[in-house]
């Protein structure tokens, strides 16, 4: 009765000590370790792509930012400052939770986790220990019809970054990262191989990027993994788990898991037990090493943060986010196919889209799918996708540029497509025009450029111009003309090509063919 009135629910304390339920899956036989079962759970810390930090007004920093420049008094734990929760971070975490099929709690709360370290200026990190933002959920892996359960998702502060300067024997502290918002996403121990772990991480990255909640970039540190590994003989009780901390690429994660599995098997086969350690990964030796054992694990002295009232989220708020958040990859793909796009075109668009820059605070970046959607508003989606995949993306690729470098606005490409569709310019002219816009980073309207470059299509009535180009072409290629006259129609294409070249694409190829034949027959 009284417990229920407590500002935060002590009942939930018991959940912390509940033994982890490990889902039973079909026995998987792995040739690398026959007879052994490997069980993997992953804890991900993903930086929230918000413009400002979790509890302060200062901007989040980008990689390469000058150290200690995006720091407010609160971030540096200056006495007398207080936290104010950034609603954008909450929104992005809720998007993530919904995308992972998690239950977003109407009431969650913030706690302090205490430890002394130079990268933690307040001496505590604000996190959600007792009442997380969301719990439950799952994510479907791309292969093998496997769903990995999500235990919980919580909001917490990132720490500062400390770098040890070996020459000067000094720790350098950069507070830029201190207080940025993180989502801690804890998986159930549902993965059974390094490959599944990699699949989980890649799928999760794609989901976060898709809903715009995180860059999901492991190399730049905006997506960090701690991996729990245990090993047991098939049909026997689960083994003791070890946690491998701070893995910063999928490749290293797989290597770390593999080496850890072999280490456990070696210990078990020699009759030893596996001690419950927290381990690091040495990339050069490709093996894990002990950081600390269970007995050394610190007591974090969790305490509800008295400065932050509980976070109350109404059903309407959650529903609004559900309705307005970006589609997940599966839904996007289905939608694109529904518009009449081929599987291949949809794949190309989505592959290009997945590499887009994620906007701050959930704003949609300049992704290929968004670009396509704007273009296809009042146009034939199949025509639009052709122009995008074959011409626009093709030309960008030829220039070794990515879609994020695309200088062509939706309005420009839209008008260009309309000009071609309305036969104001030929398809060939359209392509040259696009090339011109990309090469010159032109922001002019395609219709203006058409006039400027004299690319207007020659109308069918204007046979005089076409006839003149045809005559010129025949004079330029007398041998080919003679061949056609001798009855070799395939050589005609060469002459048509010459006409197109002379007209700079303005002539209609079909019309040119008719006129050429006519001229040659005389």
């Amino acid at each position, binding site marked *: 009765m009284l417990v229920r009135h407590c500002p935060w629910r002590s009942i939930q*304390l018991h959940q912390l000590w509940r033994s982890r339920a490990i889902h039973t899956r079909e026995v998987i036989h792995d040739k690398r370790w026959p007879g052994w079962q490997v069980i993997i759970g992953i804890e991900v810390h993903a930086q929230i792509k918000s413009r400002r930090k979790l509890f302060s007004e200062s901007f989040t920093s980008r990689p390469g930012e000058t150290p200690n420049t995006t720091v407010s008094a609160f971030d540096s734990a200056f*006495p*007398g400052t207080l936290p104010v929760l950034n609603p954008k971070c909450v929104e992005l975490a809720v998007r993530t939770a919904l995308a992972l099929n998690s239950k977003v709690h109407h009431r969650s709360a913030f706690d302090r986790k205490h430890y002394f370290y130079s990268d933690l200026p307040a001496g505590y990190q604000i996190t959600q220990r007792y009442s997380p933002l969301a719990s439950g959920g799952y994510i479907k892996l791309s292969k093998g019809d496997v769903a990995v359960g999500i235990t919980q998702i919580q909001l917490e502060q990132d720490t500062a970054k400390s770098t040890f300067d070996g020459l000067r024997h000094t720790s350098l502290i950069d507070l830029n990262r201190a207080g940025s918002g993180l989502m801690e996403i804890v998986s159930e121990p549902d993965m059974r191989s390094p490959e599944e772990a990699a699949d989980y991480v890649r799928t999760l990255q794609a989901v976060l990027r898709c809903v715009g909640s995180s860059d999901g970039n492991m190399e730049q540190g905006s997506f960090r993994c701690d991996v729990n590994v245990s090993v047991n003989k098939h049909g026997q009780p689960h083994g003791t788990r070890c946690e491998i901390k701070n893995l910063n690429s999928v490749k290293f994660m797989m290597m770390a898991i593999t080496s850890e599995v072999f280490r456990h098997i070696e210990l078990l086969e020699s009759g030893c037990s596996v001690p419950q350690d927290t381990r690091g990964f040495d990339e050069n030796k490709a093996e894990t090493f002990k950081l600390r054992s269970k007995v050394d694990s610190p007591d974090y002295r969790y305490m509800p943060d*008295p400065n932050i009232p509980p976070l109350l989220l109404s059903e309407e708020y959650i529903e609004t986010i559900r309705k307005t958040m970006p589609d997940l990859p599966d839904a996007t793909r289905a939608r694109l196919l529904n518009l009449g796009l081929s599987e291949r075109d949809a794949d190309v668009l989505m592959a290009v889209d997945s590499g887009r820059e994620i906007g701050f605070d959930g704003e949609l970046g300049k992704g290929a799918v968004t670009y396509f959607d704007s273009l296809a508003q009042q146009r034939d989606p199949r025509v639009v996708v052709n122009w995008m995949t074959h011409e626009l993306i093709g030309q960008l690729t030829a220039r070794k540029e990515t879609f994020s470098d695309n200088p062509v606005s939706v309005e420009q490409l839209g008008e260009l497509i309309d000009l071609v569709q309305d036969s104001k310019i030929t398809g060939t002219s359209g392509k040259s025009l696009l090339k011109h816009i990309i090469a010159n980073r032109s922001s002019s309207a395609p219709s203006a450029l058409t006039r400027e470059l004299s690319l207007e299509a020659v109308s069918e009535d204007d046979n005089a111009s076409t006839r003149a180009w045809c005559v010129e072409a025949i004079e330029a290629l007398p041998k080919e003309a003679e061949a056609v006259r001798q009855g070799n129609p395939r050589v005609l294409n060469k002459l048509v090509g010459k006409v197109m070249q002379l007209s700079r694409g303005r002539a209609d190829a079909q019309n040119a063919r008719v006129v050429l034949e006519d001229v040659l027959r005389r």
Partner: protein
Amino acid sequence: MHNAPTDDMLVRHASPSLNVNSIHGPVVNPYHSLNEKSIPWAERERRSAGGSSGGSAAAVAAGMCDAALGTDTGGSVRLPASYCGITGLKPSYGLISRWGVVSYADSLDCVGVLGKSVDTVKTTRFHHMIQRILPQATPHAREKAKVSAESLLSTLDADLSSPDLSSLRIGIPQEYFPSELNTTIVTAVRRVLERLSSLGAQLIPVSLPSTPYALSAYYVIASAEASSNLARYDGVQYGTRSRLLPGADKSKPGNVYAHTRSVGFGAEVQKRILLGTHALTADAFDNYFLQAQRIRQRIKTDFDSAFRVPNAQLSDPSPNPDGVDILLHPSAIRTAPRLDSDAASGLGPYLQDVMTVPASLAGLPAVSIPAGLAADGWPVGVSVVGQWGSDELVMCIGKVIERTSNEDNRNF
């Protein structure tokens, strides 16, 4: 103040109620009776001004200023006000922003004001802030609080020489008259009650049964939060950095922190940090911190069932027609202790807060008003405590008490 905070500041915060642990020496209570006036300062009886805002209280009492600010975590404004014979207000928790206040125990810390009279307190900008903020922030709860307090306020005119208090129900909590309470303080409080009763106020005995546990809960919660808030004074970002002795093991960062914090914090602060740290460790958490939170909840429930006005912060407050409008009790169990007495050492200082701590735990507005003198000739304070958000009502009754006791003193 970009530099590290001094140990002095921390001591001030964590110091129990007497202000004898300050780096500048104890604050001496400047109160003096009329017949003492001729005695030189150095020969007067040296008594405590109370703590931790004893400096502010002493400055007001000595006439150096009309009003002063102070923080009140468990009674640090009200107790010094009581000892020095002035008015001290602790507003409802959360009404006044704590931005800029160095945290001691965040869930209890309030910015309060000390003044030579209720009117002085009311004329501070600070008091205007309460009036302005109350209807603004979290409109729903505060509007409810305001409306319920206003209906009673409209019938009261504290400026009249004999205001009509017939609609006022004053609760006298029986737990606030423990055996430790000095009997001449009871006499002073009784005089106040008689005067209020003669103006028509109804005096109603009430019980707040969880009161005896308040002080223990308070020290657990306040110490736990203090241990957390003081963690930043680690000699890296804030606080004095003390160099390790030659040959010390620097390989574990813990050694470096432990060394600098052992040197930098005074004994009293270390005691609080250790107590708070222990209360938060995994093994002790349930029995100490969680238990203290449960007691805190019971104390809130006690208050809510005593007041007529429901707690505006509750989602479904039920009206309580038999409840009281304010509670009235002594501000302290005694008058200011002599600086060289037993009350200034051992457990004594911790017990000083026993009367003021419950309102802190419940976040309620409370004001201490001078209510004449005890047998030893030193000031007695009475506390008026109201439901959350009824700061105006509490000040209004404070004004009536101040006016009637002044008249009484003139009649002596």
